[in-house]
């Protein structure tokens, strides 16, 4: 009995000394979409500077901001990655917990693609067709004032120009940021093309959202889990199916899968970068300014991330699938982030 109380006591002592220590390692949380880029920067940063390699957790954008906003101090993360902009409610929560000065850094774009196996034909879709194929309820008349349950079983039911194949789309579950962005950019984009639905946005936002963001649950859309690699593998095995995932996975697997053309634009590096491909979003990270002087290496990490070598058009993040910002935007971000400019909503 004495033995184990000694062991317990030592464990507690070791634990509390760990707590008392100042942290000498940057802690980063947040989006799984930004994760591959942030980790690449962190690794380079650890190798080329005297600082320790930052520890990065992939918690999702929402989860990351929750941890980030929990307070100031070594217990809380210094930086959070996000595949969407911080929300007003999150800024407020941050402020309530004493996290007042936040610096926003936009790092680039990520395109979301609807891809199929290279064994099948490349298809041309519009956002309206994507919406009609995947929505739970679709308009029963031309302007969308009447609704019905989605009756479409085949792509060719929606438009004769589309392939005569069963609608089968593999995509991420609702917890994923990719799904959020897909729903917002592709589905809502197509949904808005109906006059009556667009008018509904002003009158009844809740109903509008439920309609435009509602994905069908009759088996045409399959939630394939958060693992995009798995979706790619399933597409290769099943040439009739389509998958929804981030551009970086298309880039890495471009020998086996191809991105569908949406509204006449192919999901290529150039098109997403120029903003022509519509289903794309910006990626960010947020810095806690209060930690900048306390945790060693924060300034240098931000500098490393915003260097041309990393997020520039020839940088190593591009090899990882990041789509860079325009030259002027990069310059602006570089100066504002290095000065830790406060966030303006």
């Amino acid at each position, binding site marked *: 009995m004495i033995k184990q109380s000694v*062991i317990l006591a030592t464990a507690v002592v070791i*634990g509390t000394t*760990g*707590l008392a220590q100042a942290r000498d390692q940057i802690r980063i949380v947040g989006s799984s979409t930004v*994760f591959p880029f942030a980790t690449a920067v962190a690794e380079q940063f650890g190798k080329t500077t005297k600082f320790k*390699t930052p520890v990065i957790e992939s918690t999702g954008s929402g989860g990351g901001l929750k941890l980030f906003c929990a307070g100031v101090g070594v217990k809380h993360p210094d930086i959070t990655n996000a595949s969407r902009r911080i929300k007003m409610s999150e800024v407020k929560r941050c402020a309530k917990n004493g996290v007042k000065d936040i610096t926003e850094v936009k790092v680039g774009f990520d395109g979301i693609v609807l891809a199929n196996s290279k064994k099948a034909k490349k298809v041309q879709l519009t956002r309206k067709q994507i919406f009609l194929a995947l929505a739970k309820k679709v308009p029963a008349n031309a302007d969308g004032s009447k609704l019905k349950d989605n009756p479409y079983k085949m792509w060719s039911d929606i438009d004769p120009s589309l392939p005569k194949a069963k609608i089968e789309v593999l995509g991420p579950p609702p917890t994923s940021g990719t799904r959020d962005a897909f729903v917002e950019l592709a589905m809502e984009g197509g949904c808005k093309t109906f006059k009556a639905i667009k008018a509904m946005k002003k009158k009844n936002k809740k109903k509008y959202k439920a309609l435009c963001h509602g994905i069908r649950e009759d088996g045409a859309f399959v939630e394939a889990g958060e*693992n995009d690699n798995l979706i790619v593998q399933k597409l290769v095995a099943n040439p009739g199916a389509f998958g929804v995932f981030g551009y970086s996975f298309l880039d890495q697997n471009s020998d086996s899968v191809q991105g569908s053309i949406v509204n006449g634009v192919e999901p290529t590096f150039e098109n997403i970068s120029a903003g022509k491909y519509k289903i794309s979003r910006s990626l960010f990270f947020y810095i806690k300014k209060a930690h900048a002087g306390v945790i060693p290496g924060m300034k240098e990490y931000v500098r490393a991330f915003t260097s041309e070598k990393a997020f520039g058009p020839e940088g190593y993040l591009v090899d*990882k699938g990041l789509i860079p910002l325009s030259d002027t935007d990069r310059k602006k971000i570089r100066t504002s982030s290095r000065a830790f400019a406060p966030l303006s909503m």
Partner: protein
Amino acid sequence: MTENNTTDAALRLRHKRYASERRFNIYGIISIAVALGALCLLIGSMASKGWSAFQQTYIILEVELPRDDLAPQGKIDAETLRDVNYVSYLRKSLRTEIPGVKSRRDQRSLYKLLSSGATLGLQNLVLNDTKLIGQKIKFAAVASDDIDQLVKGNISAGKGGKVSKKQGDWVKKLTDAGKIEKRFNTNLFSNGDSREPELAGIWGATMGSLLTMFVTVLLSFPLGVAAAIYLEEFARKNRWTDLIEVNINNLAAVPSIVFGLLGLAVFLSFFGLPRSAPLVGGIVLALMTLPTIIIAGRAALGAVPPSIREAAIGMGASPMQVVLHHVLPLAFPGILTGTIIGAARALGETAPLLMIGMVAFIVDIPGSITDAATVLPVQIYLWADSPERAFVERTAAATLILLTFLILMNLVAVIMRKKFERRW
């Protein structure tokens, strides 16, 4: 009785009984075959995917280390050696190997044959052996992950994938010249995690697993054994001990993620222990393993025949002496087996670690139980989720390594049981 007396009905009955006996045996064999088949399928698919990850492609280059750059004025100091641009030497050598690459664009894609780790490798080589300065050396440069996959035949060049036709031709040229070599992948065993598949290794995760297991066993073993001894040997049988027993059995069945939530709420938020540390991971897993050890321990203690206790008491031993000198040593193999099986389960666990921040990208090898660390199954999960194609085989390889650990642990449990077990 003679055979004639056996009626047809009795014969038929006997026949039926034998037949059902045979069927019963066959069912058993089928069950075992299905279980074994599933195991073989798992290991087979992992091995077929993963074996190639144990090799890594290298490009053998003749690298000149000019004395003028590395040791200006004939002096050698570490500072200069660190600042030198080693990439340029590798690139120059690559250009002499494949002449005629003129445009900037082509040169860039030529340089992509090499991994960023090659530069670091050359730098370390020179730092460790300054005599090489001024010489022309043969250097095995790590090839980039795409080239590695190309050489292994997992992808093909010029099909719109990551490797262009030109790059494919260059690699073919190098192969024909015998400049491409596949060697044992030491990086996989000696490095921490990396975003470059050719540099990524499991040593960081293995250390994390060892540190976590250390804390887990250190906490759960003494506590579990003490609890088992008290409950089995000393506690009075009443409603309270029944209640405790039911709860321990319940605890053993609690989904592991719940322990992670507990760890987050209690150890991180309340006690303020560091995030991602093996200390917290170990405590959480210890709580998870504790019921297994208590149950196994009680079973082992209960299997010691009462005659041993009675004899000891008869010789005048106190109850504590009876337990410590006689019952516990005899029950020990059983308790150890339970502990090892519990620890093996904890080794393969990821869910509870998700909540306490051990599912993270960590490059530095952890050295103590308060350093940020990750564990083997988490490493597998992270690699499975990475977009780079070369991580597919590494995921399978890491799985094989984890399985090896588990098999070893279970083997130790079996051997110990066989060696020390006593039957009455």
